[in-house]
């Protein structure tokens, strides 16, 4: 126990001695985790609401006007057989006619009759990312007159998710490398400034483990401290966003059907993931620095 307390004291003393570098490294880890966390929480909520978003994205398939029941069923079977849809609703031309009468001058429509309106299928996909392939397939089915979907919304949603995934991934890697580099640099400079100490330790018979341990712990403290800061800030911000969104935000953003992941779950995930990431960054950053600089 005595040696552990001694090492802990040494770690704190040494971090304090290289204060500027220590603080710089902590801030880098903090910023990295903060940015990754913001995107991560965003992705978490998008994933949580993916069903809602899928439901927003409906495809309307119009059958050639004047088609009979046989042709309507042919199209339906082709759609079902494809396997991409999770929801299908049929609207006959008569039903469409009734709806149209509610919207337009019913007298004019009565003169036209229901036959000019096509029957249609409304579908929702299991996976919206395949929408373009699905539409291309549907357009090739005989007796399909037109395929209608809010391509802008689809493309936007799919694109948004892809971009968020990509940016999060790239940012996480870049910032992770930057943090590793800075932590590694901190430890390397600490080793250089304590070169005499390392030499003495080698000469008096300290094992490599005993020599490395303080430096690894210093890197871990840096990673851990950055992680705590980022976790607390994101938790606080998310709590504020959650309160705002639940009370008025959803309405203001026209996203009334959306729900945010609970604060409790999100905060737990943040703390678990960040602590793990922070500590790993600290350990690997330190190992990177001491690997070349230490050999008994």
């Amino acid at each position, binding site marked *: 126990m*005595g040696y552990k307390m*001694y090492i802990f004291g040494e770690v704190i003393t040494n971090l304090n001695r290289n204060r500027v570098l220590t603080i710089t490294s902590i801030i880098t880890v903090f910023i990295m985790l903060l940015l990754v966390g913001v995107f991560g929480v965003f992705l978490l909520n998008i994933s949580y609401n993916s069903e809602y978003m899928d439901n927003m994205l409906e495809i309307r398939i119009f059958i050639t006007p004047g088609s009979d029941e046989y042709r309507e069923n042919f199209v339906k079977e082709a759609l079902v057989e494809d396997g991409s849809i999770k929801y299908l609703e049929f609207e006959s031309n008569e039903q469409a006619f009734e709806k149209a009468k509610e919207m337009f001058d019913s007298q004019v429509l009565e003169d036209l009759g229901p036959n000019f309106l096509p029957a249609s299928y409304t579908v929702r996909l299991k996976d919206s990312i395949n929408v373009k392939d699905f539409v291309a397939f549907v357009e090739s089915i005989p007796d399909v007159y037109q395929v209608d979907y809010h391509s802008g919304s689809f493309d936007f949603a799919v694109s948004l998710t892809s971009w968020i995934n990509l940016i999060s991934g790239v940012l996480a890697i870049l910032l992770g490398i930057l943090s590793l580099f800075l932590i590694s640099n901190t430890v390397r400079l600490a080793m250089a400034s304590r070169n005499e*100490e390392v*030499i*003495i330790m080698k000469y*008096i018979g300290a094992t*490599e483990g005993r020599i490395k341990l303080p430096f690894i712990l210093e890197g871990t403290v840096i990673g851990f401290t950055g992680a705590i800061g980022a976790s607390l800030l994101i938790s606080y911000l998310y709590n504020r966003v959650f309160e705002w969104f639940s009370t008025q935000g959803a309405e203001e953003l026209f996203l009334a059907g959306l729900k945010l992941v609970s604060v409790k779950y999100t905060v737990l995930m943040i703390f678990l993931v960040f602590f793990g990431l922070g500590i790993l960054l600290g350990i690997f950053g330190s190992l990177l620095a001491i690997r070349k600089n230490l050999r*008994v």
Partner: protein
Amino acid sequence: MINFNNVTKVYKSGTEALKNVDLAIKKGEFAFVIGPSGSGKSTIIKLIMKEEEPTGGELYVNGVDTRDVDRYEVPGFRKKIGVVFQDYKLLQNKTAYQNIAFALRVTKTNGRQIRKMVPQLLAVVGLLDKANDCPDELSGGEQQRVAIARAIANNPDLLIADEPTGNLDPKTSLEIMNLIYKINQMGTTVLVATHDKTIVDTFKQRVIVLDEGIVTRDVPEGRYGV
């Protein structure tokens, strides 16, 4: 204790630092290694400390062939050897007490034993009253005493002193050598690499002379120039 059997050392640069050196130092012996710069004194020390490997021949330290000491055994091997340097190599931000305790901590001595042993070691080197002083508050001689106390903290079988009086005045040099000699009298084998003619002549111990990597003279109770 130490046996050099036809040892040769050629560095990567091509420098032949030692050439067919045959040397035996017995347990409990006191020996000076003297010679001009580049004669191979430092190489002898590095080989004994397993900082370098012989290019040829065999070197035994305490009965162990240094070639058989693998990387993970080096710390244990070095624990049995105390080293004193010309520039003391004390930790500037630690007190005399802490410098000695440091040597014990990194070799897994427990806290209670450290608290018992450090004052004893300070007493051996006559610095009990300077326990709480940092190196910049100590004279050169006092710093070297602390370094010696640190070197013997783990009760080594062998004490190597590499120019221990190089930065000290004659009076202090003599005090330091008396201390090292006292340690030898307690049973520790001592090897002192030095340029200090006065010290060698005063103590009249075994003198091993190196010149361009060759042992040119090896006499018991020798003098520097003779």
